[in-house]
């Protein structure tokens, strides 16, 4: 292969290098700029040279960075490398660049000037933004996983504890019957057996609820469009008698006709909230209102009662597993956790407002699309 000597023209190399070059005075005034950079910025030479300072090409935030970081570094270190800023070109042109710069001292008058080289990093910047986004997402996921891990630990602890309690009484009572059974009268024995059966029932219930909670995540049914009035009717059929017996009343009101939901799961949310409203009623007969209305891309439901109310510091805790406010009241602290899971499946959120002694309103949204 033959080689041919190519002599580069220095001026042409400077002007048309695949790199931006500019030279500024110590006050930032641009005294030289190469054609490549002019082209990138969309300016004519006479608009820049001796007209604009380097700072004029910066957005305000970068100006501060220039004055507080770049200039001091150049003046102390005489050289900087790989600093990422954005240049403002003509009109809407924005050019992300990596800059390197060097301080040159003029031997004749000891004045300093600065040479900048600029690398267009438009592509790389996009990639960096992707990276930053990915990192933020990863950080969020790690945080979520940490919370899930904590929940699981809590879950295991409480399950163990809650299953142990009835088991302990079963074992205790059976031991008594085994040891002293011969001498016991029948009524006493019968009483003990009943307690044992009740305890076993409690365990069944707990296990069923746990299974239900675990299953909520993996939906078996299809999303369907249903009428709100139909949903409300099912709830009324279920609760009206019970509420009337207590001397109370339940009302429903909706400004929406149709919603798209997983019907069985969705009914369960209302079921849980209404039965809680009855369970945690105050001395006065329960008055329960269920409403449904439109809210910017979502449908907003509310269930309001005049019950005992929930202390402010428990507003979030009630939605966590096994955080029942009243463990003795036939409640295993799973119901609201299930509601939350179902609402999240519908792309919505659930929250509450409450005042002790006055009552509680649970709100939840479901996404329309």
């Amino acid at each position, binding site marked *: 292969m033959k080689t041919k000597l190519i002599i580069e023209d220095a001026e042409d190399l400077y002007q048309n290098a695949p790199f931006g070059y500019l030279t500024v005075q*110590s*006050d*930032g005034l641009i005294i030289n700029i190469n054609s490549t950079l002019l082209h990138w910025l969309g300016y004519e030479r006479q608009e820049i040279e001796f007209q604009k300072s380097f*700072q004029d090409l910066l*957005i*305000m*935030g*970068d*100006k*501060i*960075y220039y*004055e*507080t*970081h770049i*200039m*001091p*570094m150049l*003046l*102390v*270190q*005489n*050289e*900087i*490398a*790989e*600093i*990422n*800023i*954005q240049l403002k070109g003509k009109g809407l042109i924005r050019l992300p660049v990596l800059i390197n710069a060097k301080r040159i001292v003029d031997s004749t008058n000891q004045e300093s000037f600065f040479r900048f080289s600029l690398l267009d990093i438009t592509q790389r*910047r996009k990639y*960096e933004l992707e*990276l*930053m986004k990915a990192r933020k997402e990863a950080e969020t996921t790690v945080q979520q996983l940490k919370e899930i891990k904590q929940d699981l630990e809590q879950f295991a602890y409480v399950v163990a504890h809650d299953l142990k309690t009835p088991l302990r009484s079963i074992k205790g009572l059976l031991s008594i019957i085994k040891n002293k059974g011969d001498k016991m009268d029948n009524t006493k024995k019968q009483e003990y057996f009943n307690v044992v059966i009740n305890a076993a029932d409690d365990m069944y219930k707990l296990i069923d609820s746990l299974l239900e909670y675990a299953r909520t995540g993996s939906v078996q049914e299809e999303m369907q469009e249903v009428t709100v009035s139909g949903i409300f009717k099912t709830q009324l059929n279920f609760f009206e008698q019970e509420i009337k017996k207590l001397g109370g009343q339940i009302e429903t009101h909706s400004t929406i006709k149709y919603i798209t939901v997983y019907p069985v799961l969705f009914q369960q949310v209302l079921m849980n909230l209404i039965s809680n409203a009855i369970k945690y009623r105050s001395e006065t007969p329960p008055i329960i209102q269920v409403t449904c209305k439109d809210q910017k891309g979502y449908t907003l439901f509310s269930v309001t009662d005049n019950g005992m109310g929930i202390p402010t510091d428990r507003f979030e805790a009630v939605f966590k597993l096994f955080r029942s406010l009243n463990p003795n009241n036939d409640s295993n602290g799973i119901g609201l956790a299930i509601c939350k899971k179902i609402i999240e499946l519908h792309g919505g959120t659930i929250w509450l407002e409450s005042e002790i002694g006055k009552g509680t309103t649970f709100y939840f949204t479901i996404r329309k699309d």
Partner: protein
Amino acid sequence: MSEQIINRNNIKISGSGKQPMLFAHGYGCDQHMWRYITPAFEKEFKLVLFDHVGSGKSDQTAYDFEKYKTVKGYADDLIEICDTLNLKEVIFVGHSVSSIIGVLAAVERPDLFDKLILIGPSPCYINKTDYVGGFKQDDIDELIATLESNYLGWSSYITPVIIGNPEKEVYAEELKNSFCSMNPDIAKQFARATFLGDNREDLFKVTSSTLIIQCHPDVIAPVEVGMFVHKAIPQSEYVLLNSPGHCPHLTAPEQVIASIEAYLKNKSFEN
């Protein structure tokens, strides 16, 4: 205790004089900013230089996000430094945000300070209804974004490589990873503490004699702001340098030295 504070703020003491001259660097860099100024004063004064916690070679583990939320945290450190080193009749020289840090310290403990020399001070960077600070809230958000885009490097230690003169290699090596580079979270919070504060009211409470050194044009602390500071501080003098930018101690050190010397002589003459 004194050892701990000295390490915490990377305090360096030099000079053969008695009266202490305490130099506080501004936002962005560290005590090396004073390198062109200090030689002029080392014969007559005791020079005390330090890095704010979170900057330069200070103890990063001492950075408390609650304490340094506002510049008050740094002012407390300044007082602590004076007390620990038993500094009296201090001539305080502060650049940029440190001017205000000095003002806060002098308002709280006027007994410690003889004079304040403020280079490019601004009590409030954000424009208010009756005040022009030069910036909008958005500008500070942009700055944070720029800081963030330059952290990509920081986190993997490819910090902007800073190379000094070949003959000063040791010095360059020492500076490489400290001068103007900062832990990203600290840099963001320091930026907010610096640029979002409003300490205009404190200026009126200053009782120490004060010199304000102003550049023109200065994007960070414009002339109007320097004039505002001058009007607000009762016993203050104002010098406008023939130098652009925000760091005259780097760009025009001879002018800064001359104005400080004139100010100090004038004062001692009056005494």
